[in-house]
Every structure is written in C-alpha cells, then in structure tokens.
C-alpha cells in the first residue's frame, strides 16, 4: 500500500474508535429522550461527575474498584434525579424540562468548580494499561483499545437489555404507547427510573473512561455534550442503530478532517449535521416522531 493510503486507513480506524466514545455518551441521551421525551442537557454534567468520581475514589479504593463504583454511583444519582425531578416533566411542556436540565447542568458544573477548583485535576492511565499495541503499520495505545472493549461491551449490553429482555419489551411498548402500557396494569415509573439510571450511568462510564485522556475540569461536560447532541441528531432521535451509525460517521469525519485540514476538525461535525438536517430532517435512521413533527 502506498504510504499516504496507510495514513488515511489509520485515521479512519482511529475515527471508528473515537466513534465508540461518542456513542457511549450519545446512547444514554437518546434512550432518555425516546422514553421520557426529555432532552437531557445535564448529560454532560453527569459525564463530568463520572470523571471526578474516578479521580477522587481511585485514591482510597484503588483504580479497579473505583472503575466499577463510579459509573454505578452516577447511575444511582441519575435514578434519584429521575425520581424527584424528571418525573414531573414527562407530560409537561418540553421547554420546562429543557430549562430544568440546563439549570441542573450549570448547578453541577459550578458545584464541581467550588469543590475541586477550576484547574484540571491530574489523573493518568493506570500502570497496567501503559504501552502500545503494534500490528504492522498500525499502532495504538493499550488503554484506548481497552476503552474500546469496555465501550463495545456497554453498548452491546444496552442493546441486549432493550431487545432481549422483558424489561426491554416494556420500554419499547412504553415508547410506542405509554397509555396502553398503563392500561395493561404496568407502571412505567420504575421503568423510567431504571432507564434514566442506565442512560446517565453510561454518561458516567464515558467520564470514567476519558478521565485519564482529556483533562478533568468542571467544563468538560459541555465540551462533549455538543458532540453527543450532534451524534443523536444525525442518527435520528430515538434510534439505537441510527446513533451507532452516526457516532462512527462523526468519528471518521472528524479524524479525516484532523488529518487533511485540522482547523475545521471541530466544525466538520456541524457541517455534517447541517447536511443531514437539510437532506433528511429526522436523521439517518430516525423514525417519524409525533413529538417533533
């Protein structure tokens, strides 16, 4: 293969890997919206909490235990937020939940700033995950490959839960026709609590995974949230596979722009979103949404 082509293939592969990180955070955003109709603007803030938790807990619990405890703790926090706040907004004007989650994100960000300071906290890749994997011309850090497997496992687990379990059937039925589900005598409240716990826990997991790579600082949630929204919008709100395809697409486009024209690497996401919205307003695999159309 000519060298230039190898470079491009490397960037594409790197983009696909990046896509999984986007996917992890966008997926939670998408399922909370599908079932509850809530556009969770605080999703990035929960991602930041996940990152701060692993930094904070690693000292006392050790990396391994902190890695498990942190996302679960964020998930539990998500369930509490659902139980006491989100629940009030399911049947309300969507503007209210937008305002609420926006406010919540600011409260969380400022609270992190007050407790931990504005400076990025230092946090490094654990010793056991140092090193690189080299296959022919391809080269990649061990930690990122580990991240990839964790992300794939989390995404696959979510898919199985939603498609192969009784719980998933109720969730799907709840999305299609909440009133009928209620008429069947099934309460959607605990289902919503679980879904928010799952979605927000996934955001916490992304924070845990990315903490050693990007800076752990109070505004980190905002930075990733925008990218996550772009993924959800491109994929189509509420579509599992749409989000998967969009995350990969965004990762690859961003990777290639970083290679060929770096100043546009962040802008490329928005150009892609603009293009998709013009050509296919509901997103790549989005279904027609009564709430929106």
């Amino acid at each position, binding site marked *: 293969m000519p060298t230039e082509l190898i470079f491009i293939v*490397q960037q594409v592969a790197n983009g696909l890997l*990046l896509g999984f990180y986007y996917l992890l955070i966008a997926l939670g955003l998408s399922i909370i919206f599908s079932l509850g109709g809530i556009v969770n603007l605080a999703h990035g803030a929960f991602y930041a909490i996940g990152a701060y938790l692993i930094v904070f807990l690693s000292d006392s619990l050790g990396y391994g235990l902190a890695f498990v405890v942190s996302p679960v703790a964020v998930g539990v926090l998500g369930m509490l937020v659902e139980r006491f706040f989100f629940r009030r907004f399911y049947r309300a004007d969507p503007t209210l939940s937008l305002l609420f989650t926006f406010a919540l994100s600011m409260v969380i960000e400022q609270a992190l700033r007050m407790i931990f300071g504005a400076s990025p906290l230092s946090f490094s890749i654990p010793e056991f995950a140092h090193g690189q994997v080299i296959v022919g011309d391809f080269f990649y850090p061990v930690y990122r490959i580990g991240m990839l497997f964790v992300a794939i496992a989390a995404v696959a687990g979510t898919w199985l839960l939603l498609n192969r379990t009784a719980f998933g059937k109720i969730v799907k039925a709840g999305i299609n026709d909440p009133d009928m589900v209620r008429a069947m005598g099934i309460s959607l409240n605990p289902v919503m609590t679980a879904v928010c716990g799952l979605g927000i826990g996934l955001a916490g997991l992304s924070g845990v995974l990315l903490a050693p790579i990007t800076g752990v600082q109070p505004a980190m949630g905002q930075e990733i949230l925008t990218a996550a929204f772009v993924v959800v919008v491109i994929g189509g709100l509420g579509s599992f596979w749409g989000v998967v395809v969009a995350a990969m697409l965004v990762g690859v486009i961003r990777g290639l722009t970083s290679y060929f024209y770096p100043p546009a*690497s962040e802008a490329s996401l928005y150009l892609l979103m603009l293009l998709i919205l013009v050509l296919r307003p509901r997103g790549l695999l989005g279904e027609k949404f009564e709430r929106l159309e």
Partner: protein
Amino acid sequence: MTDEKSSASSPRRRLLLQGSAAFAAGLAVPGFARAQDGGPIRIGHLTPRTGFLGPMGEYAVLGATMAVEEVNAAGGVLGRKFELLTEDSVNPQTASTKAQRMVERDKVDALVGEISSASGLAIAQVAARAKTLFLQTGCNSDELRGKNCSRYMFHLEACNTMYVRTIGQALLRDGMVKGKRWMAFTADYAFGHDLFKQTKKFMDENGAVFVSNDMLPTDATEFSASLLKIRQQKPDLVMSNLAGNQTTNFTKQYNEFNIDIPFAGADMNMTSIWGAGKNGFSGVWPIIWTHQVQAPSAKEFVARFQKRWKKLPENQAVNDYLAIKILAEAMARTKSVEVDKIIAFLEGDNSFDVLRGRPGYFRPWDHQMVYEMYTVQPSEDKNAGKDDFMVTSKPVPAADQSLEVLAPTQEENMCKFA
C-alpha cells in the same frame, strides 16, 4: 428651580427638603472623604474565571487577594486600605464593559489582571481613554507591547518573544534546532498565531527545517489524529503553540501515544503541568516562575501562599500578586495615587523583588517587565512527589547576561506612546 423654591415655602415641604438634603449630605460626605483620604484605594481586577483560561484565572484571583491582604495587614498605603474588586472578564466585549464600569462607577485607582491578549487589548483601550493605570498580568502577545502599546499599560507577563527565546536557548544548547525537521501544533486564535510566528522566526533564523503547522481549534480535547500524524511524519522535533487546557490534554496524550520524538513548546503554565500529572507531563518548556525557584523571597512566598490557600502557588498567581505589591510600593514611595507620578516611578530607575534571584524592572520605552525566566521538564527521579515530578532549570538568561536579552529590541517591536 423657582418651582422648588416656591413649594419649599410650605413648612412640611421645607422639612422634607431639609431632611433629604441632610440625608444626601450624610451620604456625600463619606463619599468625598473616600476619594480624598482615609477611604480605601480601589483596585479593579479582571481575569477570565470561566472557559479554557479559567484555571489560570482562579490562581490570579488567589494571588491578587493575598497581595491585598498583605498590604492591608501592613497598615495599607498612605494610611488607606486596599480594596479589591474582582470579576470574570469572560471575553473582550465583557472585559471592556466591566473595565469601563470599574473606572467610571467604582472609581478604581488602577486596573490589574487579564490573561487573554484580546481582552487585555480591550481593557488597555478603556484604561488609556480614562487615563487609568493598567498592570496586565497574563497577556503574551508581542503586539500589545509594540503596535498596540500604551503609556498607561505595564506588562508583568512576559511576551511571546521572551518565551520563544527562553526555550530557544535550551533547544540550541541541546542541538535540537540546526538542520532539524520540526512540526508545529498551534492554538487557532490570536495568541497561538502570534506565538507560531515568533517560533517560526526563531527556528528559521537558526537553520531548522519546517515540516508543517496544524492550527487546532481551542475547544478540541482529543488529539489522536494529530498524534498519528506525528508518528507518520517522523520529525526531529515537535513544537506546541497550544494554550490552556489544550496544552494539558495534548501533553498527556503525547505521553500516552509514547511518541519518542523530542517535544517542546513556547508556552507553559503550572496548571497545565499539574493537570497533565506525573505520568502525563512530557517535553521541555519555558515558564516565567515555578514553586521550585531557588530564591529566598520565592521560598517565603511559597510558604505564605500554602499557609493561606492550602495549595502551591503557580506562575499566574505570582504575576497578579506582584502587580499589586508593586502598585503598593509605587504609591508608598511616590506618596501619591496620581497616575502620572506612578508611571514616572515605574518607568524610572527602580527595580522590584519579583520572587526570583535577580530583581526585575520595567523597560521605560515599552513598559515590559524583564525578569529571570526558566525552563521546566519532567523529573528523572521516579520517586519525585506529586508536586515535584517536574524540574525547574537555572534562571534564563544566565547570571552574567543582561535581563533584556530575551525581550525584543526597539527595532524588533516598535512602541510609540501616544
């Protein structure tokens, strides 16, 4: 007026008028006194508290607050206390509005602070119009001391050329410049562009071979694509002109990708080094000050700062601290808060303890403070503590060189005070 006079003839109305006049006088008298003597000397402090420069702004506030506390604990200046009004400068527009409000409404005696060169320029314009002193503590752009220089603005922060020459001396010493192929990564805004220009000038003059420069958006946090590109191009040296959180993340990821190509850059802050952490910090960098500086006054400052804030000071805290201490010294020695007298004092043959080995001073023709700088790189000592995983070099320039060798000359960066 005639109307009021006639209505004042009614007894009740007169009483009301007298009452309000007395009330107004009661308010006005202390206000008058405040402006003359006894009341506090007000300092308007503006610095970014949010956004990618926020971490440094936080330290700026700690440094400034501590300086004011020390000045007041020593009985203030001219029998008056210092009062610090500190606000988030956000962006150039907001910085300009807030500076204006501080000057006009709060009647501040001086403006101090800022980190962004763009916001610094906006504040400098307000200060010049209002003939108010502005001690800037974090803006690096050379143009601020050259084309955009102002008689009312003094620079506690080193300019880009000073940073580039500091790291340049280290690179020349290590044989990393002549004939070496180098790649650059630059923050895509005014500061980065200016820094890249100065870096490229230095590298070209010293015979380095330029490969490429990538402008990276300031909100980018993930740099794997750039790092793969470095591995593909295999240059001899990678130079960073990145800023704020970008530097932290790029440095960390450079280490993560285990790239064995020498890495350096022309701007570094302790917040970025601490943020990158022991296993993430790499490269060799210029810096204006660190807590490892071996000077008696620096060590005392570190101890005081740690006692007050329960953490180590970093370079931005030092600049804002020094600005206020120098201002207090200038007011005390000139026995005045008049801007012209203070400017004359700062431009005069006076040097200041700047928490380094040698005292620093302002150059009269461009108001740039010249002082010792340093380079910083990871420590070889694997058991170094969490605060000392980096080592600070001896001062640059060396003890036998003039402090002015780093800063641009009058020909290189012309400044004409209007």
